[in-house]
């Protein structure tokens, strides 16, 4: 399997010691073409910092990031062509319809008008967004806007697709549709990095789970192997066992329940 994303020894600190935060502390991660890797961790575990370095928004202190053979640290402009991103924050689509926003991103990323239109139609249909496709974003629910943001990342996927909490606010039915689309993107050859708090999402969609805590990788295995090796009943049990039963773990579990 071709490796699309290779992260080696990544370190990133915000602020000087002793007050600062070591957001990533020697992270190693590899994602092959066609793989979906779930990045799991509590708030402040270093997930978003990791993603920001991959997509060229933050500069690592140490370590290497290679994206489809390109040094993403030295050549962030080129790396941006290879990665499509659904950010955790809302996308700026007020005033646009979902259809128009997906179409514009697809064409900005280099898709032909006809190809992007076909892909946009497919995504609107696959995510059951039809009724809201031509409604301006300020009139749709948060979940629909989130699905539109996912479609914007999926319409012209790069070698790597980064999805940061894609199912936040999404109803259970469409969440499953979205998971199916993530799998489809991977089956077409993209590597997918799925950042999530949702352990069930990780269990359902991903090929491998990477659990991050205090900027370090605690585990990087298939969900099945993790559960079996820890003799646990579920991935959630493994997660809580690994990150501890402290405040962070309780927060994460509560978010999952919510």
């Amino acid at each position, binding site marked *: 399997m071709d490796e699309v994303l290779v992260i080696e020894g990544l370190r990133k600190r915000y602020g000087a010691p002793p007050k600062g935060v070591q957001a990533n502390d020697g992270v190693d991660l590899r994602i092959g073409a066609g793989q979906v890797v779930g990045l799991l961790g509590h708030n402040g575990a270093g997930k978003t910092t990791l993603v920001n370095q991959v997509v060229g928004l933050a500069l690592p202190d140490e370590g290497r990031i290679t994206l489809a053979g390109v040094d993403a640290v030295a050549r962030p402009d080129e790396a941006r062509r290879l990665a499509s991103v659904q950010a955790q924050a809302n996308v*700026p689509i007020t005033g*646009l319809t979902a259809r128009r926003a997906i179409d514009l991103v697809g064409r*900005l990323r*280099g898709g032909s008008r006809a190809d992007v239109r076909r892909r946009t139609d497919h995504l609107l249909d696959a995510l059951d967004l039809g009724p809201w496709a031509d409604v301006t974003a300020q009139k749709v629910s948060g979940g629909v806007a989130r699905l539109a943001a996912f479609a914007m990342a999926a319409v012209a996927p790069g070698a790597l697709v980064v999805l940061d909490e894609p199912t936040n606010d999404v109803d259970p039915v469409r969440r499953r549709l979205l998971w199916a689309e993530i799998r489809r993107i991977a089956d077409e050859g993209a590597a997918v990095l799925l950042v999530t708090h949702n352990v069930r999402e990780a269990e359902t969609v991903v090929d491998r789970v990477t659990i991050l805590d205090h900027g370090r990788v605690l585990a990087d295995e298939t969900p099945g192997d993790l559960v079996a090796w820890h003799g646990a009943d579920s991935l959630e049990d493994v997660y809580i066992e690994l990150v501890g039963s402290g405040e962070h773990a309780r927060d994460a579990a509560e978010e999952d329940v919510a």
Partner: protein
Amino acid sequence: MSTLAIHPAPAARQLGLLLQWQFRRMSQFLPLLVVVQILLAVTTVLGYGLLVGTPPPEQALYLATGASTVTLVMVGLVMTPQMVAQARTEGSLDWMRTLPVPRPVFLGADLALWTLIALPGMVLGVVAGAAKFHVHLSLSPWLPVAAIVVSLTAACVGYAIACLLPPQVAQLVSQVLVFVVLLFSPVSFPASRLPGWLEHAHQWLPVQPMADAMRATLVSDRFTMPLRSTLVLAAWCVASLVAATWSLRKRA
């Protein structure tokens, strides 16, 4: 459906698509923004008119032409930082920065939008000033160039402020700039009225050269663009463009 090989659209096409994006995003507020700019320009003229009564001819020329500069500068130095700071707070600016779009193209789309928003206010401010103070305009063919350079420089400075300072500080700075530009910059009155130290400072700041450029192209038979102002404005234009582009490239 197969994965697209990513070869981003050519820069000119990306510029068009981004402009379309930004216009549609602002479509709800665009008429209001334009109206506010027009009101700002016209009320600047009328407000100063109330303050000074019937001004002598040279002062009338400053008042009549000052509103256009104020409008362009306000959009760039005040509205741009506020909008960009808001986008930073929401996180949407970071998402835009993940798109495979060269930073100058990204900046160009925003600057074109801000310039277009400022244009109606600029034109109506000049018309109102000329009518109110009975000023005869003699427009130079360089007027569009001057307006674009002033708008570009102001917006780039505003962009850099918004990207480099924390969002709340950027918004605060933009508020302070309103008063500095309106009351303590030689835009609607000659620099000689300012205290010596401030007059000297304005020789190195961009607002006075901006006002000089607009005056020299709106009333070209009475004013010329001083060489010093040309050089200072050019330096600010280049420096602010570099700073704005750098601030968009900057990684945390």
